[in-house]
């Protein structure tokens, strides 16, 4: 006799879990810096179009899939598209697991930097020496020296394993522990952010940073990169293409209103992104620190440089900032792990504790690889450590291609295979917001067309150097890596072999197919 599928205790718990999954590291520091890069206020136009045209409809599909099939992503797609559908689902899960590996490595670094913030290294008069890179004391800005000292030291592995242990504890009992955690973490994330906004706006000239963030420069609107950036951004920020939202929605009763849920979760995520810009830009402007559209740079170099200017308040503010990063990252990483765990449990009917430990052991091995302190570039001309290089290369493919491919395939499978008219009827049956035929057109034609454009442009940029500003060649070809010259080729091959190979193996392995609502 099979056990009843676990469920969220409350709708609020589900909303907090789903929005906690979507609100991650990038929401805090990356979005606003990305907007600044693409014409500031002008970026909001393509961003909002992307949210309404792609983000909300695809989230409705992912929620609807969980509601309709009552199971995790691979089995849900498999029950519509057969083996090919299930394979697409497992591809998504394995791709998400690879992202989890380096995501948690980054969270481990955030813990390390939190430690440096409290210990005072980040705010000291003279920056620390970084022996592995032959960098003497005081030669680099504090934050950069502290970060490279951290990642070139074996102690960063301890922080990474520590974050994994936190994750294991939080997903150990499924919705019970996840719901309990997000009910504390997500409100805390919002509260801390409000504190940062108040602090930023109270700095001299801080409000002008917000003016800067919203004042548009429409001269960029003809640049295809801006539109590509906006559509890609919306897909990533909403945690689409991971299988998370389907897994989470499958833990709700069938009568749940997933149309409204999708609107609430999407808007909550994007509202947070918008207000985070207030905090980030007011601080950066007040202390004349130039933003950069790079999450790692913003998290570990640029924001600490601005916080350092707060004087006596820097130590506490810095520690709170890295706590914010850790909380936001944890609420996302537990959802990534849960997406994989629920998929394995649904197919193979394994015990939760065993499954969590098995998935985590694989994850820890991967995270340690991404956190490798092995220095391959003493001059800091390139990535500095092997792990950082691998992280960047895998991220490029797993995020830039993997998620978009999953989004495209799920729209095609649901749009044409289910078909979408059936999904719409299901969603409408339990929602006060009634979706019209426009929804069918979006899922069948518009969203796939947009995602094909995003994928195609990325491919053109990578392979044929269209619009590329840096050195021509495959992504990462210009990295300086002693003894590892072919990593730019090896990384995408490994990513493809892992996602396609393991995805196919899991799809072909006999197991439970799941039943509606089970």
């Amino acid at each position: 006799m099979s056990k009843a599928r676990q469920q969220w205790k409350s709708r609020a718990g589900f909303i907090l879990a789903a929005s906690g999954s979507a609100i991650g590291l990038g929401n805090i520091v990356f979005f606003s810096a990305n907007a600044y890069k693409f014409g500031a206020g002008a970026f909001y136009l393509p961003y909002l179009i992307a949210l309404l045209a792609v983000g909300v409809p695809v989230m409705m599909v992912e929620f609807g899939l969980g509601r309709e099939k009552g199971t995790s992503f691979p089995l849900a797609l498999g029950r519509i598209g057969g083996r090919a559908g299930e394979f697409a689902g497992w591809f998504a899960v394995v791709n998400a697991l690879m992202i989890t590996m380096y995501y948690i490595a980054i969270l481990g670094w955030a813990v390390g930097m939190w430690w440096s913030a409290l210990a005072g290294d980040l705010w000291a008069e003279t920056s620390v020496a970084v022996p592995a890179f032959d960098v003497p004391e005081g030669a680099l800005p504090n934050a950069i020296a502290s970060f490279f000292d951290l990642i070139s030291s074996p102690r960063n592995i301890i922080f990474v394993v520590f974050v994994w242990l936190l994750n294991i504890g939080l997903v150990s009992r499924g919705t019970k522990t996840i719901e309990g955690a997000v009910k504390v973490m997500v409100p805390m994330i919002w509260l801390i952010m409000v504190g940062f906004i108040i602090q930023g706006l109270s700095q001299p000239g801080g409000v002008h940073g917000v003016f800067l963030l919203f004042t548009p420069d429409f001269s960029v609107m003809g640049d295809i990169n801006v539109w590509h950036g906006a559509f890609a951004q919306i897909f990533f920020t909403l945690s689409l293409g991971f299988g998370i939202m389907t897994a989470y929605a499958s833990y709700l009763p069938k009568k749940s209103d997933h149309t409204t849920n999708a609107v609430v979760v999407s808007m909550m995520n994007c509202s947070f992104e918008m207000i985070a810009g207030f905090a980030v830009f007011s601080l950066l402007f007040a202390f004349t620190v130039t933003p950069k559209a790079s999450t790692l740079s913003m998290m570990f170099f640029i924001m600490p440089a601005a916080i350092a200017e707060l004087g006596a308040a820097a130590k506490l503010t810095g520690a709170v900032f890295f706590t914010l990063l850790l909380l936001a990252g944890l609420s996302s990483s537990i959802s990534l792990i849960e997406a994989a765990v629920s998929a394995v449990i649904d197919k193979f009917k394994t015990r939760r504790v065993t499954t969590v430990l098995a998935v985590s052991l694989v994850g820890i091995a991967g995270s340690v690889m991404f956190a490798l302190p092995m220095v391959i570039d003493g001059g800091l001309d390139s990535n500095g450590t092997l792990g950082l290089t691998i992280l960047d290369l895998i991220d490029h493919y797993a995020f830039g291609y993997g998620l978009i491919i999953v989004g495209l395939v799920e729209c095609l499978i649901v749009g044409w295979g289910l078909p979408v008219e059936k999904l719409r009827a299901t969603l409408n049956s339990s929602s006060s917001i009634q979706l019209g035929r426009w929804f069918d057109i979006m899922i069948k034609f518009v969203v796939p067309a947009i995602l094909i454009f995003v994928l195609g442009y990325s491919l053109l940029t990578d392979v044929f150097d269209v619009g590329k500003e840096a050195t021509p060649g495959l992504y990462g070809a210009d990295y300086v890596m002693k003894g590892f010259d072919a990593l730019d080729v090896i990384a995408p091959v490994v990513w493809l072999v892992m996602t396609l190979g393991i995805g196919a193996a899991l799809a072909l392995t006999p197991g439970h197919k799941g039943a509606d609502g089970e």
Partner: protein
Amino acid sequence: MSRYFKQPTNRLASIAGCIFVVAATLLSGPFASAEVSVSEEVLTRGRAVTATVVDESGAPVVDGVVRALYFPNSKVEREVEVGTTDAAGQVEWTPSHPGIAVLSASSDDTSHGSSSYSVRFDGVPASGLAVFVVAATILLGGLVFGIRRLQSEQR
């Protein structure tokens, strides 16, 4: 969840490549001992200030070309030549754009350093306010609308 390194176009920036760019940016900001300075603490778009360029010995740089880089690290980055320094190493600079601006000086292929400044708006920007109102209405309005729907369904 969002991105880690580069912008979505090329995917997050290769940390690697950008490390030195970031370091240079930071160093040119509050960490560098500026050789290019301005006469006012608070800069505002459209209000002239005097920029002074001195060499390492502290002597004024004569005939140095001063440039202002507006919106660094962005797609709308633009560089404007401010002018040439006089016998006192000074030139008048009227910031033409609000935001972060990097003021640099050079002469005869010799760089005399650079400094970053925050240039304030000369009032509340109407276009920025409009964008904020539209974005906030859609995002926060959508959020409130959705929550109220869920609440009414629960009742």
